[in-house]
């Protein structure tokens, strides 16, 4: 497989190194000539010391025959442009972008980037699993990101406590399918009564998350926090 990596920071460097070691054909683009030289000294002449956002240099790097383009620079706007150029101008089948600002995830997805990796979101997710949060926790995006796996921690004030899924107005395109109670996960049936402290696992479309939030977390809790 031919993988074009753009951005020779820590992520790009280790990514290229691992890919080379596992036998893939790799080209790494890094616009800083000094940094590019350092990497070339270590992993060989796969480094192109040019800006991967420039159409001309992407073309010269063989973007049109890449199986995967991974844009892993530290700048979201650069990663977006690299992936869009790869996808729409060079017909690359698979584009992957590193996204630093979680707010940009939806935009990137909407604009056609195939896969989005957000280190900020991942670390945030990890922290939120350990502290009480009054937000839905997005565990994973499924397929092309249309569906999401969501966790809601039911705390005092949640309208779902003492009720069963069949009594809630669950939006279309969503389903509640499991509950984690005292560390044990069990399937959630339409008539299972939900208790305070339960973690309810749902699957649903992104646009349902507001409705799901009001059903499982409650609106008052959020207002109280903001006040």
């Amino acid at each position, binding site marked *: 497989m031919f993988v074009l990596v753009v951005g020779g920071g820590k992520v790009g460097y280790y990514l290229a190194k691992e890919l080379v070691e596992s036998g893939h054909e790799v080209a790494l683009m890094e616009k800083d000539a000094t940094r590019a030289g350092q990497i070339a000294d270590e992993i060989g002449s796969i480094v192109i010391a040019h800006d991967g*956002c*420039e*159409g*001309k240099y*992407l*073309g010269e790097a063989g973007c049109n025959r890449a199986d995967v383009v991974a844009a892993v620079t530290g*700048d*979201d*706007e*650069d990663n*977006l*442009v690299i992936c*869009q*150029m790869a996808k*729409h*101008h060079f017909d690359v089948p698979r584009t992957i972008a590193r996204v630093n600002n979680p*707010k940009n995830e*939806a*935009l990137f*997805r*909407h*604009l*056609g980037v195939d896969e989005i990796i957000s280190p900020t979101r991942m670390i945030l997710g990890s922290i939120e699993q350990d502290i009480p949060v009054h937000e839905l926790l997005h565990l994973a995006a499924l397929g092309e990101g249309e569906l999401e796996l969501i966790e809601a921690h039911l705390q005092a004030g949640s309208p779902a406590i003492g009720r069963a899924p069949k009594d809630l107005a669950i939006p279309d395109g969503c389903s509640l399918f499991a509950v984690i109670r005292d560390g044990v996960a069990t399937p959630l049936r339409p008539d299972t009564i939900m208790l305070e402290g339960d973690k309810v696992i749902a699957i649903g479309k*992104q*646009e349902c*998350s*507001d409705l799901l939030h009001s059903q499982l977390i409650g609106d008052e809790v959020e207002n109280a926090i903001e006040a």
Partner: protein
Amino acid sequence: MKIVVVGCGRVGAALADSYDRAGHEVLILDVKTGAFDRLPSTFGGRAIRGDGSDKDVLRRAGAEGADIFLAMTEGDNRNVMAAQVAAETLGIERVVAKLNDPVRAEAYAALGLATLCRTGLMHDAINAYLGFAPSDVVGMLGPTGTHPGGTHHDHQAAPAGEAHTASAAVMEA
């Protein structure tokens, strides 16, 4: 008309000032307050410090409902991102992004943005002055294709971009 300009460099400031004097409602954004020194003291529009590629900043600055959006910062990629946020998330119809790389300018025109390439414009201006034929480098390009979101202007298809707009509006309310 309501016109948003992102980037208060020489070009952005000149555009903002002239549209303001022509009686349009002008909003200009830049990440550096010092950049607004380029505007004349007579400027009657609004100048707001903030990142013009951040949809929340644009909303708070009042960019929603604008007729025209001009992304004129020094960074090609920042302009592309701001222009796409304006077109896809805020639903602004007429969007122009300044792009100095001709390859990117052409590629994004095909993706539904109007693009402006200084390389081509200057090349043609110099050729015209010297009496040479126009270059084949792109200058000002209208959109030659549709938005990547595709269904943006098709209200039948419940486009994802408008769903985001709606949910963000709810969160702000």
